[in-house]
């Protein structure tokens, strides 16, 4: 009798080894988590919206009010993300490079917006910026309306997204090679030339990542905006608020349709940012 030839026995040793133990198990847990936490809910969302049919989808998701809400959401989030990433760069630089009393306390305060319920932030901001509020009593006569306005939306979005922008850039600034700055100075570069030509290219990828995170955070924010924006349709209503108001009308399919559009916008923006970021990283190495 002919037995199985040795060569047909699967050679287990030939399998590629990885450094990490329990690769199979950890891979399984990872995929399960991603599927369970992200893929399934998103699939349900899209299926639910698809049940409307193309015409129904458009009728629900592309109404003038919804389009206005997308515009407010995108505009405010982009503005807030730009402000956050620039401000974040500055704050991170100060926290890393400057020695001053209270630096550690300031460093700890950076994370507060992450821990605070954002609704609280929204309430506090609106109390501050209304006409009779601490800041509003001075600002409103000057024509600066911080509450019930798009400016207010941007303000709270900066508040909730700033920690991301700071925390992403901070370790990169810490790891900067100070020798290169000294080298640039010795070669005759001014301070601004040193920053723009030597320092910035090294931290720009991190700034862009911070921008992407801040943008993603801002697009999905609901709790704080709902208290400060006044939620006036066509003016200060953002897409997440519109979704909730559709839900309150029990128009679930319409709500999911709007959510799908919002999701599509966020995803495409994040993809664009990612591509840009990768290009910068490749350039920086």
């Amino acid at each position, binding site marked *: 009798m002919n037995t199985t030839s040795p060569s047909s026995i699967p050679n287990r040793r030939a399998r590629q080894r990885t450094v990490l133990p329990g690769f199979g198990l950890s891979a399984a847990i990872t995929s399960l988590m991603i599927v369970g936490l992200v893929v399934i809910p998103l699939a349900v969302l899209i299926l639910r919206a698809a049940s409307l049919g193309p015409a129904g989808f458009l009728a629900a998701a592309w109404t003038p009010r919804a389009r206005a809400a997308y515009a407010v959401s995108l505009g405010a989030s982009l503005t807030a993300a730009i402000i956050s990433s620039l401000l974040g760069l500055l704050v991170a630089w100060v926290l890393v490079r400057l020695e001053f009393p209270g630096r550690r306390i300031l460093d700890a305060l950076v994370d507060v917006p992450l821990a605070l319920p954002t609704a609280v932030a929204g309430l506090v901001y609106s109390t501050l910026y209304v006409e009779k509020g601490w800041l509003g009593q001075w600002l409103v006569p000057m024509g600066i309306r911080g509450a019930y306005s798009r400016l207010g939306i941007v303000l709270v979005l900066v508040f909730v997204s700033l920690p991301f922008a700071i925390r992403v850039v901070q370790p990169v600034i810490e790891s900067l090679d100070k020798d290169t700055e000294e*080298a*640039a*100075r*010795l070669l*005759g570069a001014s301070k601004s030339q040193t920053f723009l*030509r030597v320092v910035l*290219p090294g931290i720009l990828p991190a700034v862009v990542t911070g921008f992407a995170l801040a943008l993603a955070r801002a697009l999905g924010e609901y709790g704080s905006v709902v208290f400060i924006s006044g939620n006036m349709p066509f003016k200060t209503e953002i897409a997440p608020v519109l979704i909730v108001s559709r839900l309150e009308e029990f128009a679930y399919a319409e709500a999911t349709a709007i959510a799908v559009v919002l999701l599509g916008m966020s995803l495409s923006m994040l993809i664009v940012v990612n591509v840009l970021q990768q290009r910068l990283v490749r350039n*920086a*190495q």
Partner: protein
Amino acid sequence: MSIRVNGVSKSFGTFKALDNVSLDVPQGTLLALLGPSGSGKTTLLRIIAGLEWPDGGRIEEDGEDITDRHARQREVGFVFQHYALFRHMSVFENVAFGMRVRKEPAEKIKSRVDELLHLVRLDGLGGRKPSQLSGGQRQRVALARALAIRPRILLLDEPFGALDAKVRVELRQWLRRLHDEIGMTTVFVTHDQEEAFELADEVVVMNHGRVEQRGKPDEVFDKPATPFVMDFLGNVNVFHGRVENGRAFWHGVPIAYPDYPHAQPRPARVYLRPHELDIARAAPAGAAPAIESEKSLPATVLRQTRTGPITRITCQPLEGGGELNVDLPTAAARELAFLPGERVTITPRSVRVFLPDPEYVI
């Protein structure tokens, strides 16, 4: 361009990095600052470059006081230990940087960079990123970058410290030739005495923020001025002995030491370099001794270790304990073929004796 460092001091907190250091570097000299870490050699280099401010003292270039001049106005070429290349720029742009910020015309930059890349033997690599180069190539880019601004002096901070042994030797020979060609006043910092002696016209040995000794490599090596220099140059046998009546005693072996004619004995340290010792098989009992036994130390062979062309024989003196290294050319050691446990006599050809500082002696 000559450099004069005049009474420079610098402290970091309570740590005194430089303590009233003065130093002259004549035009065209290649000078090594040699010392252990924390000796202040890098701080001194950085002060010359304008990267640190001295707490006191002055820096002069050709007699002109430049103490208050910023790094960017000093026109020094500086090479860092870890290259400090601009990672996001190509090799070409790295070298061109100094000329770009000076807004020099593009054709001039192009020809100068090409000339420099040729000088550092990196022709055709201008388009690479630093990450695509080896350590030795990166350091040559750093050198080309430093030379691009036509500096008046060249300063190098442990320039070969991050390179592996072979590249290090090649690169320092090459740097020596380059210096001979362009003749620029050059100061480099190193903790590697071999590097300092091979490369430099003059060596300055530093310790605890002070200059211990300055001289030509041969002078420093043959006539160490202080016990520290002797110790630091390394590879030395140190014994505690005593001096009296114009003689030093090392394990009972007398050595002429006319500097101390007094009768009162004083403790002293005796330094013997392993390659300045003669070793011979001890004469069998009754036979005439091979060398004059009066000046020889009887010892026992412990072991032999070969490091390339040199074989080190470690011995133990019969009296007094301790270990003593004797270096012989490997061929000679092979001929003698000592076995562990064999009796030998060791005769110093040259001995240095240092007395402890008199101020510490009551």
